């Protein structure tokens, strides 16, 4: 009876997770490539030219998935961090640490592509819109998390301190979002509104969703690769790492 239940805590140990992650990574790369090619094909060749925005709108196929992933990864990171604090598992902290750079890059990418989109559409690289501002602050939160972990030499302390910061951050993200939103409505200077976007064609929506899946799979593949590197780095003193074929060479 009891041996039918999968013991998930088995994979909480870096030693048993390392080979599993190694087996999963190629699959996520394959999925990322399939979704990426399909999504790009839809976004460049199938999706119609937008009536008001012309061809320039096609940047949203990169921009929107990047923005979604930057928010989603922060929540996933905070979840891993919370698990690490609650259950005192080492792998959780490593996962949070591995996710942070990917999330920061997604946040940066969403800001960068947003600027590219804003220049032809609004005539400005940057406006103090609520979404732009909160994406910028999210980027700062990622940088703070990475900087805090980098400043602490003891890996276990780095994990736990980072976990508290991530949890404080995840509580603050909605507060920051709404405060920036109200701040923006109070200062209604430029007449820019991205809420009144015209109804989106179904193919555009599909292109965006498939691109989001591609970004998602890419993020998992990269985070798993990074977590394997972190495991090797932190467990370098153990016997099982020294026995690995890739380490022995």
């Amino acid at each position: 009876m009891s041996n039918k239940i999968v013991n998930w805590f088995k994979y909480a140990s870096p030693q048993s997770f390392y080979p599993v992650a190694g087996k999963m990574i190629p699959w996520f790369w394959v999925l990322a490539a399939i979704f990426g090619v399909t999504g790009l094909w839809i976004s460049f060749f199938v999706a119609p030219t937008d009536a008001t925005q012309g061809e320039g709108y096609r940047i949203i196929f990169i921009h929107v998935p990047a923005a979604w992933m930057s928010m989603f990864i922060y929540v996933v990171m905070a979840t891993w961090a919370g698990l690490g604090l609650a259950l005192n598992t080492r792998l959780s902290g490593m996962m949070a640490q591995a996710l942070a750079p990917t999330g920061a890059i997604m946040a940066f990418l969403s800001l960068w592509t947003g600027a590219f989109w804003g220049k032809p559409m609004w005539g400005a690289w940057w406006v103090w819109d609520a979404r732009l501002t909160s994406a910028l602050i999210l980027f700062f939160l990622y940088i703070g998390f990475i900087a805090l972990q980098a400043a602490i030499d003891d890996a276990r302390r780095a994990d736990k301190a980072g976990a508290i910061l991530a949890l404080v951050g995840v509580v603050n993200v909605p507060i920051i979002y709404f405060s920036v939103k109200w701040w923006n409505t109070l200062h209604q200077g430029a007449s820019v509104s991205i809420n009144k976007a015209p109804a989106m064609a179904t193919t555009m929506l599909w292109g965006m969703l498939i691109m989001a899946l591609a970004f998602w799979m890419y993020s998992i593949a990269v985070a798993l690769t990074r977590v394997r590197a972190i495991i090797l780095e932190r467990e370098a003193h153990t016997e099982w790492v020294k026995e690995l074929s890739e380490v022995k060479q």
Partner: protein
Amino acid sequence: MSAVFAIIRRDLLLAMRRKSEVLTALFFFIIVVSLFPLGIGPEPALLRKIAPGILWVAALLATMLGLARLFAPDHADGTLEQMVLSPTPLGLLIAGKIAAHWITTGLPLVLLAPVLGIQFDLDSGAQGILVVSLLLGTPLLSLIGAIGAALTLGLRGGGVLLSLLVLPLYVPTLIFGAGAVEAYISGTGAGGHLSLLAALLVLGGFFAPWATTAALRIALE
């Protein structure tokens, strides 16, 4: 509760014995605020418009200056470890330390702000709102900052790191604090902003000492 007051009294006494540290943050606040008209120009209409934002940003930065000292001296001489070992809950003692930090850094800013507001030609009503918003907001700055101070305790380059961690979290306080004064000036009324600021203060007062305590236990492990 007596332990909390004992902590507050002790920290205030220590601050009084080393007045220069408190005064440095205060003069930093005054100097930063005075620099803006020099950089921007002396037109009263423009200064009146930017005054709330400048006073609030300067208050954020001045609070940041004192944060690095919040736990570091106690950490260095072992007092912090004694606090962890004491029978009084650590969260209460930390709340006392945060209160003392606010009295030494936040409260003087609240009292000074109207004087600096005169430099920016704010009328008396706006001055009143500015004082109330700072009175509600500066304790929140101390509470949120304490989390950052505990996380960066004893780290290399802790001061710069602290500002990187804490300043993004100060954004809502800044928006509602400066927004209250601006809303009053523009005639929409500051009530909403002040209520939100008070709500954030209640939230911070409940959660921040708790998160700070958790961070301190990790730092002392």
